[in-house]
């Protein structure tokens, strides 16, 4: 067994493909490991998934722990957690990163509880640094700084786990950049044998109905999002018109989702999707940090809000103080006129 310290990444997959978030985290783990001289280890549970292990190595892992078993063909909490808990107890990783997906958020707390270690949800940044713990008058070196918005989003907290291992964190898809695959990278694929216990099969999946994601917010070049300032389905339809005109997608803040104007899969922000479109139009979104954390990397931001003090204005390139229900039609009109002018000119 190796003495080298390690950063683990939980590798999720569907339909024979490694999830983007797992590769993004493998890339981030590579960065952190470079600073620390640690090994990057992917934990891959599945059945007939060895090819995916290669993919994980190409994206930055030094080693993949591969648990291949028919009972692991699909994600289930207890069998997957069993593999992670057994191997983590044995190998003692320093850091364990998990995608903030529905399955990742089901898996991570179960594992953290069994290992009695700290877990921070939905980090928006991860760094390495030191921490002085007054209670013990001790400085802990090279801890994982788990950075996330807190207290209603008015603050950004840096969380550390000084005394327990692994230091666990979940990160949503799109928060970390996808590393480029490097076909020349080599690594070790190490088979591990699951040591299931009878209770691990207390739950059986009777059926799965997969709804293929129609929402591709992450890749949309333009996103038109609505928030609390959008108060009716008719007003939301205007945003859809504008998005269609711009070849983009509609998005939403949590307020619009909670108001039932649009499905949760359209939510942009820390607990939704992180996006970096060419143009982001925030219509009636005040701009809580959880929302801004998911869109402030957009190339251009237009904010429309009746409240001139809305925080969204402070990250916007174009500030329009006004009612979105009136302003959005003006933008639509301006775009239509341009396309008519263009046609006339041709």
């Amino acid at each position: 067994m190796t003495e080298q310290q390690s950063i683990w990444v939980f590798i999720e997959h569907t339909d024979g493909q490694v999830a983007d978030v797992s590769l993004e985290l493998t890339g981030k783990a590579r960065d952190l490991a470079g600073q620390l001289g640690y090994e990057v280890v992917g934990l891959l549970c599945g059945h007939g998934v060895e090819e995916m292990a290669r993919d994980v190595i190409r994206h930055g892992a030094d080693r993949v722990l591969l648990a291949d078993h028919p009972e692991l063909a699909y994600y289930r909490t207890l069998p997957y957690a069993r593999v992670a808990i057994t191997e983590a107890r044995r190998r003692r990783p320093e850091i364990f990163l998990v995608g903030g997906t529905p399955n990742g958020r089901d898996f991570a707390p179960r594992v953290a509880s069994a290992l009695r270690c700290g877990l921070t949800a939905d980090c928006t940044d991860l760094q390495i640094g030191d921490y002085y713990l007054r209670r013990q008058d001790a400085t802990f070196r090279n801890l994982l700084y788990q950075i996330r918005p807190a207290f209603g989003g008015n603050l950004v907290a840096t969380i550390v786990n000084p005394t327990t291992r692994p230091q666990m964190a979940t990160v949503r898809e799109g928060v970390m950049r996808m590393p480029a695959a490097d076909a020349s990278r080599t690594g070790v694929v190490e088979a591990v044998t699951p040591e299931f216990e009878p209770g691990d099969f207390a739950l059986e999946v009777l059926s799965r109905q997969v709804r293929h994601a129609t929402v591709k917010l992450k890749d949309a070049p333009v996103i038109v999002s609505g928030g609390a300032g959008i108060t009716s389905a008719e007003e939301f339809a205007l945003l859809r018109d504008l998005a269609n005109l711009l070849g983009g997608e509609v998005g939403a803040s949590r307020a619009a989702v909670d108001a039932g104007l649009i499905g949760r899969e359209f939510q942009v922000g820390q607990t939704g999707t992180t996006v970096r479109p060419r143009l982001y139009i925030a219509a009636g979104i005040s701009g809580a940090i959880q929302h801004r954390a998911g869109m402030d990397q957009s190339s251009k931001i237009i904010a429309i809000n009746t409240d001139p003090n809305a925080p969204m204005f402070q990250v916007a390139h174009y500030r329009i103080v006004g009612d979105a229900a009136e302003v959005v039609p003006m933008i639509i009109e301006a775009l239509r006129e341009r396309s008519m002018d263009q046609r006339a000119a041709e």
Partner: protein
Amino acid sequence: MTDSRPIDSVVLAKQVPDTHNITGDAMTKDGTMNRNALSAIFNPEDLNALEMAVQIRERHGGTVTVITMGPPKAAGILREALWRGADRVILLTDRRFAGADTLATSLVLQKAIEKIGRYDLVLAGRQAIDGDTAQVGPQTAEKLGIPQITYAEAVLEIADGRITAQRALDSGTEIVRCEMPCLLTVVGSANTPRPPSVRRQIAGKLAATPGEYAALRAKWPEFETDAALEAHLDAHGLRIPVWTADDIGASAEAIGLAGSPTQVHKINFVVLESTESKTVPPTPEAIAAMVAELVHEYIVG
């Protein structure tokens, strides 16, 4: 109908600041939070969990017990739970619980559930709106040594010691069957929580923890002593029990700040990056000019 026996449920609830209704007033000028601008509410998805438990009782019989860990004023949501259909409520409060992260919280909940003893189901909201971690449910299940069904949207059947439930995932839905006891985390789309019943509100108006007797007696001077009030409450099942760390057998080093592996290293006020920005008046001309600029920069078109 199924032939199943009565089902005893424990619902985990949390009192949270109403972060959904944060307005401009919630932020003070120096960037700190104006807590007074936020009211304390029953965490929304915990209401969905309570509603699911009440519906299970209506169908199968059994009991619904609601517990919450929090400061003394969290008794407020326990009264609300009684008005919305709970049979029994328990407040877990102790100064030593303060500062708990999700791991330390789940330990307190585990100990309290084990003290309650018999249960078939534990139900909790998927996540609380003040932290959005969704961790306490699975962590409590792990400590109890029972399986978990996260993102539960519907209970399809309870029979032969097993529950069949539908899970709502981003990628679709899943139907699972699980041995009981087990823990469910419930999503907001599961149901529409019933409003507090007027009849229950009248009957349960006086429900209180011992810590609230003084305030209650100020309003109801006919109870001349705490003992008189307590006798009345006990006779009507309205005393909200309070359990401390000692009552549930939780050791001091495993709870609160001391039992929390996560520590806050630092807190930064949010400093918004100043971007080069233009104010565009809401007029057709100004907006047309903005669109022209975006086209010129190849952002649009």
